[in-house]
């Protein structure tokens, strides 16, 4: 990958309020996670499964907040190319549209990675310092959930980059983001097979914990499904961006 192209993508982010969107994502998920535990009558910081309350909160908050805001991030970064004749400018400098999409994915992907991991760590720190949860942190489960969310976020981001690049009208991309939010939230009530059908369904599949009966319980993470999604998405993204490279201006 052309590191200069990736550096340029970061330079283009100036004045696009990427930082503000990132802060909204982190704060919104943190708020929803805290609300989940605060609003639960059975939650106790001393209970052995206390961390599951925050994991359940994140499992609800991330699908509710991320799909639309990932669409916003991708859309803003791509729309500047449509508006500024950037595709042709870069193509006449030797950087093909597919190459640009890959550069944008790496640049935005690094930011989404930072947001996802940052959100996870912030919720963890808040649970320890603010909520005062006493039992030890289930690090493996926590890290596994963070990894799963990161993988799904990156897949959704890649999809939005392709949609925004292909369709000039960014309202379509944002509409898909809203649809994705609905799918991500409602897939939690669908059978697992149905949740496997769209990238947003994997948010529901990767729930780390949920309220069952008398309290929050940890749920097994679907590592094989997430790995398969990541592999399929990587192949599809590579093929489509390769096709963009050969698309005529």
């Amino acid at each position, binding site marked *: 990958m052309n590191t*200069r*192209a990736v*550096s*340029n993508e970061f*330079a*283009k982010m*100036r*004045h*696009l309020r990427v930082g503000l969107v990132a802060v909204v994502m982190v704060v919104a998920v943190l708020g929803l996670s805290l609300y989940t535990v605060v609003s639960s009558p059975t939650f106790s910081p001393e209970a052995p499964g206390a961390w599951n309350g925050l994991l359940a909160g994140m499992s609800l908050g991330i699908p509710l907040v991320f799909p639309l805001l990932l669409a916003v991030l991708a859309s803003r970064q791509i729309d*500047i190319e449509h*508006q*500024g*004749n*950037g595709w*042709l*400018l*870069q*193509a*006449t*400098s*030797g*950087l093909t549209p597919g190459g640009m999409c890959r550069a944008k994915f790496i640049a935005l992907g690094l930011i989404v990675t930072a947001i996802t991991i940052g959100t996870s760590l912030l919720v963890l720190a808040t649970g320890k310092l603010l909520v005062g949860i006493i039992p030890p942190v289930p690090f493996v489960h926590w890290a596994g959930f963070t990894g799963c969310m990161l993988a799904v976020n990156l897949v959704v981001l890649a999809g939005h980059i392709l949609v925004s690049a292909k369709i000039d009208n960014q309202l379509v991309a944002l509409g898909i983001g809203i649809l994705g939010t609905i799918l991500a939230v409602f897939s939690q009530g669908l059978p697992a097979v149905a949740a496997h059908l769209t990238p947003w369904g994997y948010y529901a599949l990767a729930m780390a914990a949920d309220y069952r009966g008398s309290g929050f319980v940890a749920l097994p993470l679907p590592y094989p499904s997430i790995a398969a999604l990541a592999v399929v998405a990587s192949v599809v993204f590579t093929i489509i961006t390769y096709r963009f490279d050969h698309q*005529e*201006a």
Partner: protein
Amino acid sequence: MSSTIVATENLTKRYGNRTVVENLNLAIPEGCVYGFLGPNGSGKSTTMKMLLSLIQPTSGNVEIMGQPMTRGTRRSLLGQIGSLIESPPGYAHLTGAENMRLVQRLLGLDRQQVDVAVATVRLQDQMGKKVRDYSLGMKQRLGIAMALARQPRLLILDEPTNGLDPAGIEEMRTLLRRLAGDGVTVMVSSHLLGEIDKTATMLGVLSAGRMIFQGTRSELMVASTPDVIITCTDPQAAAATLGSFNARLTEAGEVAVPGLDDRQTAGVVAALVGEGIGVYGVARDEQSLEDVFMHLTAGGGL
């Protein structure tokens, strides 16, 4: 102006059954300003995109600086070709300076190259402004600065005067002349001859995807065969006598005869004298390049 910097051989582009460019044989000498003329939709932009390998020809070849332009060679060749295709590029949310830094970083240029390009288009005092606050002329100049920053041997400009006011057009002409003076070969397209007539040293005229003329301005004038204007004692009788040559009376009371070569002109004069009509003067009609261009593009060729 010795070697050819751009050459195409039977360059053709078809979209389904629609032929946009057909058997184009361009030859652009190095160091010239090549005016690429044609009405809207005649295939100029498509040709320029094929030269830059932004679209692939259906058939035919493109050779630039002695090398075939293909997907394999385009990256290295594009390093020596500056271009401005369609609307001027520029990220509106960034300043002019930030836009230039993007080009500088992508192409690995040094600061001096960027400064020279900006100074060439005289935009150095506007670089702190966001591009969304630029006028169209300033955006065009920024686009040209982006193209010039790599210090190209060849500059391809697609209708750079589109939307500019007369002062902007004159400024663009001056810029093109200056670039040519510095040794840059400039290919500039327009659908208006007047816009590049005074700047171009070579002209190529495209109509419906086909090259109908390529050469110097004077060759274009010669090739268009202006009417022969005859001043005589009895214009009405002369026009009747030369009816088979499609002669017509002009408002000035002269007889205009189209499409005559020198030998035919002599024969026509002899015929009039033979009919007892006194001939005072015989001259070629003065016509502007604009007239020639309109005639060529309307008629589909010479």
